[in-house]
């Protein structure tokens, strides 16, 4: 039997956003093809390390130099250095890219994409974020506001399961939360002291896509507090495409998943003024294939989707599909993670915790949100992720200590420490860009991606302020003057936040943006881009929930357009 090549809808990529597109489109009755460039990762079955203890790993969990050499770029982030998760990150030799300026492009090519390894932090945006570009003139105005996305956030949160506490903060709207992970006694203490010293700041429970409380989503169960999420969770305790949206899509009978299918480009049809299908290269056979559909969702991740669009050249679009504005590939954003502060907390020497929370605390942004606190030399703002925990007595590998007492001492708890790390907003800037290098092709004959992005004054000033405020807050908690700041400026490269976004931005004007308010390419309305490429600004909170909500919203739009016959 020859392979089916025509579908109602095609979704490119099966990660966080692609999984949502697949679920929504399939559930509406559309025959949907999901094209995924990597291998299968089946929920539970393909999490080989999920239940492994340190002693179960070969060679004590160390890997050889030869093996390290295959992931030299991915290893710039600690997550990929973890022997238990490295198989969810790409092989850098097979998947090269170019850096005009250093750029950390952290990713995994397999079913589920980075939904398997993500940090699961989940925060809504507010109108402070949606109006920021308009108010300070950086980038272009968002074509939507909070009220447009609010119901979609709710839909997504209810489906994926988000634990957190309601706080009634204008800069961080509440959502549909299940019971929060409890704070430990030192976290409660720090919250009290910090909020006493800074009445306008809030130290709150983190919000994350973990299942808590009574009602677990279908086919999943409560998080077991083991903090091994990035290996894949056999309980389905956190949200991934693999545990949640893809099984839902599959259940409809309308879902076709094709692995090892590298999308090369989207095919433009001059007659209809729309896209008619996609060109695919089979990853294993290198054969060229074509698939057709009435509507196409680009969810290959920010960089992946942008590369596909840039490579989709036609007479109508010589510089890449939808690139009338010249903004495709530009305005790359991320979040800065340039440091924070931490301190010892005294007075709880006889207390300890058991179990491992996979998420601790959040401190939402407080500067430039309309209150009394203004950034002296920067616009926008930053928030912090953090928490308090009691550490083991340090191991002192380098000291001259040996012997039984020394050994047994290390089995005890040492100090409690509280720490916060600053996540800062990066402004949209046309100069921060990615483009394709046609002289350097990859193993499948596709042009490689080159990055040319850097932090500028606003980001650096903001990060310096964030570190300094972190130090002051730590000292306010302890009443001492010895908090330690950490400065990652030398280690950070653009992309290190793993929140790359913005290279096919939404906007009101086709002259300055790639997508409209429904995530459709202005000039090619049956192509929707709903991964991070669509973002018009970056805010300072983790973005994936916003990609999911925009995807669900755009899918609903596409479904109704199809019903109306707009794309036929």
């Amino acid at each position: 039997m020859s392979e089916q090549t025509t579908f109602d809808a095609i979704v490119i990529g099966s990660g966080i956003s692609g999984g949502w597109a697949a679920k929504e489109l399939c559930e509406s009755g559309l025959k949907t093809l999901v094209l995924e460039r990597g291998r299968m990762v089946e929920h539970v079955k393909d999490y080989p390390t999920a239940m492994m203890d340190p002693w179960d790993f070969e060679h004590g969990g160390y890997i050889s130099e030869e093996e390290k050499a295959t992931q030299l770029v991915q290893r710039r982030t600690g997550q990929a250095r973890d022997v238990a998760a490295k198989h969810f990150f790409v092989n850098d030799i097979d998947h090269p890219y170019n850096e005009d300026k250093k750029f950390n492009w952290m990713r995994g090519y397999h079913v589920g994409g980075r939904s398997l390894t993500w940090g699961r932090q989940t925060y809504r945006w507010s109108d402070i974020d949606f109006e920021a570009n308009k108010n300070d003139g950086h980038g272009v105005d968002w074509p939507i506001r909070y009220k447009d996305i609010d119901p979609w956030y709710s839909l997504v949160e209810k489906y994926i399961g988000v634990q957190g506490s309601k706080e009634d903060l204008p800069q961080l709207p509440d959502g549909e939360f299940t019971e929060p992970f409890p704070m430990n006694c030192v976290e409660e203490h720090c919250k009290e002291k910090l909020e006493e010293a800074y009445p306008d700041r809030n130290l709150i429970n983190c919000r994350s896509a973990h299942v808590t409380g009574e009602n677990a989503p279908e086919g999943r169960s409560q998080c077991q507090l083991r903090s091994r999420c990035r290996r894949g969770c056999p309980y389905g305790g956190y949200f991934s495409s693999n545990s949640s949206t893809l099984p839902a899509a599959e259940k409809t009978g309308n879902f076709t998943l094709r692995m090892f299918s590298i999308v090369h480009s989207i095919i433009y049809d001059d007659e209809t003024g729309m896209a008619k299908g996609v060109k695919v290269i089979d990853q294993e056979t290198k054969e060229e294939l074509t698939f057709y559909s009435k509507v196409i969702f680009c969810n290959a991740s920010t960089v992946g989707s942008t590369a596909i669009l840039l490579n989709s050249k036609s007479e109508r679009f010589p510089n890449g599909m939808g690139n009338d504005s010249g903004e495709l590939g530009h305005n790359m954003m991320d979040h800065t993670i340039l440091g924070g502060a931490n301190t010892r907390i005294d007075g709880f020497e006889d207390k300890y915790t058991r179990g491992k929370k996979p998420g601790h605390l959040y401190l939402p942004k407080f500067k430039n949100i309309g209150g009394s606190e203004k950034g002296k030399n920067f616009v926008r703002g930053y928030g912090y992720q953090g928490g308090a925990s009691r550490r083991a007595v340090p191991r002192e590998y380098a000291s001259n200590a040996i012997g039984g007492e020394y050994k047994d001492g290390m089995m005890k708890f040492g100090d409690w420490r509280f720490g916060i790390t600053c996540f800062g907003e990066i402004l949209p800037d046309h100069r921060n860009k990615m483009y394709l290098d046609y002289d350097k092709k990859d193993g499948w004959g596709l042009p490689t991606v080159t990055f040319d992005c850097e932090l500028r004054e606003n980001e650096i000033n903001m990060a310096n302020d964030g570190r300094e405020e972190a130090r002051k807050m730590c000292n306010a908690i302890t009443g001492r003057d010895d908090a330690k700041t950490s400065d990652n400026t030398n280690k950070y490269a653009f992309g290190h936040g793993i929140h790359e976004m913005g290279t096919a931005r939404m906007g009101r004007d086709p002259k300055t943006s790639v997508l409209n308010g429904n995530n459709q390419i202005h000039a090619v309305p049956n192509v929707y881009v709903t991964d991070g490429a669509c973002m018009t600004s970056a805010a300072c909170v983790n973005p994936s929930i916003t990609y999911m909500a925009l995807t669900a919203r755009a899918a609903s739009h596409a479904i109704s357009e199809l019903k109306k016959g707009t794309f036929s």
Partner: protein
Amino acid sequence: MNRREALKSITALVGYSLTISATTGFLSSCGEKRAVVPEWKSVFLSQADAKAIEEMTEVIFPKTATPGAKDAQVIKYIDDLFKFIYKKEETDKFLEGLKRVSLKAADKYGKPVGGLTSEQYTELVSSYFNIPEEEFSEKRRAANKEEVPTDEIAKDEYYEYYYFTTLKSLTISGYFTSELVGEEVLDYNPVPGVYETCLEETPETRIASV
């Protein structure tokens, strides 16, 4: 997936599991688990070197109310890392250190380093560690540099301190990632099910292993 793994994932799928208090003290039978393992054969080190190194790991981490380095089979871990992970320069340097330590031991005790009494091992190893912390750090730093000193005494010290500081690190990491210590000495709680926010510490309380 091996059998052990399969068993573990079955437990996983049962979902919320009862948490058994793992904070009970070290059971005196713990060491036995390893004692019944058949005679272990090194894959990289010579049997004689392995024997000597193993005795020295026991000086670094001796048996107390909790197992020692020998119980935790730290030597097996070290042998494996040398074969598969360490670079040749590093293992060569380590073995050169052992050789020089052995020569000194032979001079002093009149027998090869593999045949010392446990008191003699303790004396030998301690003589390298029981020096003021600052002096020790200086020697450690010198030993971890690339350039080898030309002076013979300094050269001995260079290799010997490389050997002992490496051995100490390996003993700590091998011990604390061993199954014996992880499952039976520390608080082994792989599927907690709950986050306990504020427990009272007792003298028996130990840190979590996973």
